[in-house]
């Protein structure tokens, strides 16, 4: 029965080919440093899942954001766990992505033919940091509010374009309901969508070129 179902599905989906092309690939001898990329991916998935749960209760308005977080922490069943994981995984993701970048740097895996993988990776690093920056404001507490005030100020110190950047980030001269709305939208739609897209490209390139080997004396 099971074999029949499998055969039927395989005919239509090409499961066997998928297995051959995605999973049953040869690789050079790896070690634990090679797990950092997949760890970044795992953390990204965790963030997506816990983040989706959080949006069920979170309200992006200055009047309710703080209280909705309090509600998640104190009233919603396991809300504290979901938020706790989202909070810590965010920090960990920045760390893991950064260390992954370092390992790629030290093993010189960014060289031919993997230059584009590196370039896309830089995009991923920046997006990950952007997720951290936009997410930090959402609880709308003192720390978040003032850190974001200073953060956007720094972005506003760019010569000539600074004023424009500042206004674009804040949606006005000061932090306001508009800023929160903007950061929320960036945090749950724009940045994750871009991130998912780039992760896709990144993974395609990795499968295409295969994992690089650790350099030896001849390299």
């Amino acid at each position, binding site marked *: 029965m099971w074999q029949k179902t499998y055969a039927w599905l395989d005919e239509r989906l090409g499961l066997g080919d998928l297995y051959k092309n995605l999973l049953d690939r040869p690789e050079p001898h790896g070690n634990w440093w090679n*797990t950092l990329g997949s760890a970044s991916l795992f953390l990204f998935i965790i963030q997506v899942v816990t983040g989706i749960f959080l949006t069920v209760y979170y309200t992006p308005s200055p009047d309710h954001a703080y209280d909705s977080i309090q509600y998640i922490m104190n009233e919603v069943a396991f809300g504290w766990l979901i938020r*706790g994981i989202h909070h810590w995984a965010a920090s960990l993701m920045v760390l893991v992505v950064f260390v992954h970048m370092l390992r790629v740097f030290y093993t*010189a895996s960014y060289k031919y033919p993997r230059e584009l993988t590196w370039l896309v990776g830089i995009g991923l690093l920046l997006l990950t940091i952007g997720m951290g920056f936009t997410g930090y404001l959402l609880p709308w507490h003192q*720390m*978040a509010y003032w850190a974001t005030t*200073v*953060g956007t100020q720094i972005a506003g110190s760019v010569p000539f374009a600074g004023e424009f950047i500042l206004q674009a980030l804040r949606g006005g001269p000061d932090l306001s309901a508009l800023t929160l709305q903007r950061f929320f939208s960036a945090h749950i739609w724009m940045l994750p969508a871009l991130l998912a897209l780039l992760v896709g490209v990144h993974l395609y390139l990795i499968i295409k070129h295969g994992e690089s080997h650790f*350099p030896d004396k001849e*390299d």
Partner: protein
Amino acid sequence: MNEETKKQINQKYERKLEHGERFWPDSIFKDVIVALGIFLVLILLATFVGVHDAPKADPSDTSYVPRPEWYFLFLFKFLALYGQIPVVGKIEWLATVLIPGIFMGLLTLLPFIDGSPRRYYAKRTMPIGIMSIMVLGIVLLTFLADVPTVLADGSSLLGTLQTIAGIVIPVIAYALFIFYAYKTKENAVRLTIITALISGVLMIVFTGAALALHQPPAVETAEVPHTLADQIVAGQELYSLYCVECHGDDGATTVIEGVQGLEGLEIMAINGKDVLYTLNDASLVEVINYGRPDAGMNPFGKAYNPEGLTRSQMDYIVTFMRYIWDDRFEAPEIKPLFPELAEGEVPSYEVHIQPIVKRYCISCHRPGKDSNEYYMDTYANILNSGENAGKNVIAGDMNSYLLQTIQGTPILDASGAEIIGVMPPNGSLKPDVVDALVRWIMAGMPETEAEADALSAPTPAP
């Protein structure tokens, strides 16, 4: 890179693949173990460390010291140190835009800048040296995040140490790396490694010195009340401090007494339906924030009153008013103000009197308020301050002014004119509160629980 090198690279890779492993199951196995480990760590962190709390955002409280996420701390520190440098330190965008921009640009274009096919570590000492110093710098600056650059006494020793560790040494090391790469062809590798190690050690030493010289101030972390009951209690404490003088401990005051400038002003009770049913939470917060300046209530928002209340604090007061006074809300179980006194038990300052005074008296009896300079903020002040210090609280004497006034007897001078009115002026205390104060003074005002226990009549054996 020419076609020949590319072919060599690809052939080498093919050979490595032949002696390698399979993605499934070899690599996946490790990936899954790491993922499980991460998941476990996350659950432990979420459960046992939790999420650090902060009070609600308050745009008017500009005194708040911002603290970004930890992975931005090094940037903040870098900006602070950079600002110390004479002349260029004043050109902000050099540090905020240009320098980070250059580094990000170099990092992005790395595969094109470093286009050589060499991959072995010893053949890449310069980029590895630069990156290692960079990463070490980032880590050290993160550790230094809380060390000030200029001390209160104007000394900039700490700032200098930090600038040396975080900016000067790396810059010198980088200059040397570049010099070696172009001038000392044959020894470059050895020199680069030695320089990197020495710079790294020096950076750590200077950072350590700055950390060792810095005495962190005792940080007082504001507890954020979580449960509804905690928020109500927090609200009541704030109400007791800021509002009792005019509105009374139960909000029922209709004639203000004992407040300079507002003596005899008629107001409406704020604990009834008139106020609580007509004003929603947001409007109540607004009343507290902006006050009723024309009617005599000063604003409490931080924007108008530097010693005022934050947004969270106003929210707690409103929560308190709702749950304690508004009959549409049912309050959760709340601990009584002080534990009930048994027959013959003597109350102590710590356990009984301090909460009573905080609730009923401190609003008027604290520095800055006009109440005969009788400050009830500490044990010593309760015993010994005020214009009539010495008469207010006398051990074992029912004629202590405090005991007379709280029992409805004003103090008169020789000619029969009232010098001290009844206390609190805008209402009377509940019998159990009066009883506690009477027992405390009659027994000699014990401060600690142990002293009070020693004075208590022994509990009859059961």
